[in-house]
């Protein structure tokens, strides 16, 4: 029986945890206070490195690379706009001080006097809550007032970004902060010509816990290579959608769906699961025994499972779902979000969107499925994680479309052959039994 192990979600149900007073009452800012009062900043970096904390937003790379440990600025990519992902905004809306303490700890550790938090414009409420929390943290001295940033308390700037999916990529984020087009580019990770550390917001939420309770404690949760937990965002046709924080490697995808979310709604059977959203994989029911740990997946851990866990979001689809329609919508999303810099992404996402839309609408031409396959192979040669696109959107789209075509090829072929959908679709409004961590 798979159970939750809550670290960053531990306090999320405390009603007023978003207020400083309540956060402090529950032990908040104690770690930051203790660290700033004693011991060198370097110890924070060492603790984070020893804990093996990896970026939760999909790359699963170490938060602070081995090469460097002093940075002038910390830049936070608080972007969430891909289908199925809603973890970061919930963490910010409910527990903004946990995030700010993590940010202040990291800035203190690496010696940064300034921090920029870039919020995607889809996260309005998170931004409002964070602004208020920032005022409280400034007044209490946990972060510096305007113009008074120092290497013990950083000045934190909140900025908004309407840049969509590619805007979350570190180089795009830095371009945006420098007033350039927020597109990915080949550039050093510097802001205003000084070294900058780019991190994800949901990863920062772990820092108060790791620095407070020690790397050894963190390593006791999760797997040896990827310690800690993953906050899985589960949505779609399940009985109890919502956020579930599980220890990495503590169970399989099927167990998460059955044990935590209660499985697929009554009188229906599971047809497909989209794991990791756009950068992830589409799985069929026979693949649900894959463990929820990055090392078991080809990406990012070179594991045996041919797909990517990415950010660990999970969208469950039952037997009323048309996979061609789903693929068409997802590729349409990729085509609209593509910034147009990388040729494979620019042309490929649009081409796949057109082909899948044609198949779905019953206007397919003979050979369209084959054309889609060829396009995937052209966009991401040999379907390896080569640098086909700077931000990864082009590669991700090709992988995902390839997954749809290989896992649900019969359905695509039927659409092409018969010019209609063989699925008994259900567009009615569904009401889940309950929701874990409500909006």
């Amino acid at each position, binding site marked *: 029986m798979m159970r939750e192990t809550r670290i960053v979600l531990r306090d999320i149900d405390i009603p007023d945890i978003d207020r400083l007073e309540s956060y402090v009452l529950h032990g908040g800012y104690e770690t930051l206070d203790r660290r700033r009062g004693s011991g060198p900043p370097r110890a924070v970096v060492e603790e984070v490195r020893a804990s093996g904390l990896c970026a939760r937003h999909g790359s699963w790379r170490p938060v602070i690379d081995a090469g460097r440990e002093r940075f002038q600025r910390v830049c936070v990519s608080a972007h969430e*706009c*891909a*289908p*199925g*992902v*809603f973890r970061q905004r919930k963490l910010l809306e409910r527990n903004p001080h946990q995030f700010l303490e993590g940010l202040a700890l990291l800035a203190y550790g690496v010696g940064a006097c*300034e921090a*920029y938090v870039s919020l*995607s*414009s*889809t*996260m*309005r*409420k998170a931004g409002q809550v964070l602004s208020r929390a920032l005022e409280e943290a400034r007044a209490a001295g946990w972060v510096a007032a*305007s113009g008074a940033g120092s290497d013990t308390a950083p000045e934190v*700037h*909140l*900025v*908004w*970004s*309407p*840049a*969509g*999916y590619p805007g979350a990529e570190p180089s795009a984020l830095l371009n*945006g*902060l*420098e*007033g350039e*087009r*927020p597109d990915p580019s080949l550039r050093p990770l510097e802001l*205003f010509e000084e070294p900058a550390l780019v991190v994800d917001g949901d990863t920062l939420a772990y820092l108060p816990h790791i620095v407070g309770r020690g790397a050894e404690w963190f390593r006791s949760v999760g797997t040896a290579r990827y310690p800690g937990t993953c906050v899985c*965002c*589960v*949505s*779609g*046709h399940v009985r109890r*959608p*919502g956020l579930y924080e599980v220890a990495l490697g503590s169970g399989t995808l099927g167990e998460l769906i059955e044990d935590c979310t209660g499985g697929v709604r009554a009188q229906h059977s599971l047809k497909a699961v*989209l794991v990791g959203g756009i950068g992830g994989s589409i799985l069929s029911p026979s693949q649900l025994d894959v463990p929820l740990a990055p090392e078991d997946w080809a990406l990012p851990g070179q594991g045996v499972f041919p797909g990517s866990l990415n950010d660990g979001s999970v*969208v469950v*689809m039952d037997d009323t779902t048309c996979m061609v329609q*789903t693929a068409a*919508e*997802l590729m349409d*999303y990729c085509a*609209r*979000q593509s*910034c*147009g810099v990388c040729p494979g992404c620019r042309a490929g996402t649009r081409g796949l969107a057109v082909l899948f839309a044609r198949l779905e609408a019953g206007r397919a031409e003979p050979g369209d499925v084959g054309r889609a396959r060829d396009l995937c192979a052209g966009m991401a040669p040999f379907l390896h994680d080569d640098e086909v696109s700077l931000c990864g959107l082009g590669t991700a789209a090709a992988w995902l479309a390839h997954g749809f075509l290989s896992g649900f090829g019969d359905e695509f072929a039927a659409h092409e052959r018969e010019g209609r959908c063989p699925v008994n679709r259900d*567009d*009615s*409004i*569904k*009401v*889940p039994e309950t*929701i*874990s*961590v*409500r*909006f």
Partner: protein
Amino acid sequence: MEWPREITEECTRVMGTVAVPRTALLTLLDLGQRRWGWVPPAWIEYVASVTDVHPARVRSLTASLPGLRDEPVGRHTVALCAGLACRLMGARSVADRVMELLGITWDETTPDGRITLLRKDCQGACSTAPVMQVDERLYTALTLERVEQILAALR
């Protein structure tokens, strides 16, 4: 052009929080988007002047970034989520009812200029799908009755 006072105050506040004016570029464009539901040409000129970025660059950003709109909208915007989870949970039914009630389709505005109907990419509230954003407010776990009430309350 004369801007409402709360807008210029917010603009001044934003400019005060950044070390370099150009850093505020996206935030200020987003401020216009939030205030009017789209980014009017005069706001583009204004943002270009305060951030010291060439207006042509600001215009091209406004036209191309997914989160900005360069065409006018009605007094209210009703944006239905085009995300996967929303569709699975019944967003098509919601869309059908909204179109029936308003008599318009995507990207159209009611003849009285009251409401513009938009499709937006995933709003990130997937566990409470289907959802709909009215101006800046997000309504979750929609039912058809709720949709009717929400639309009826928009003047």
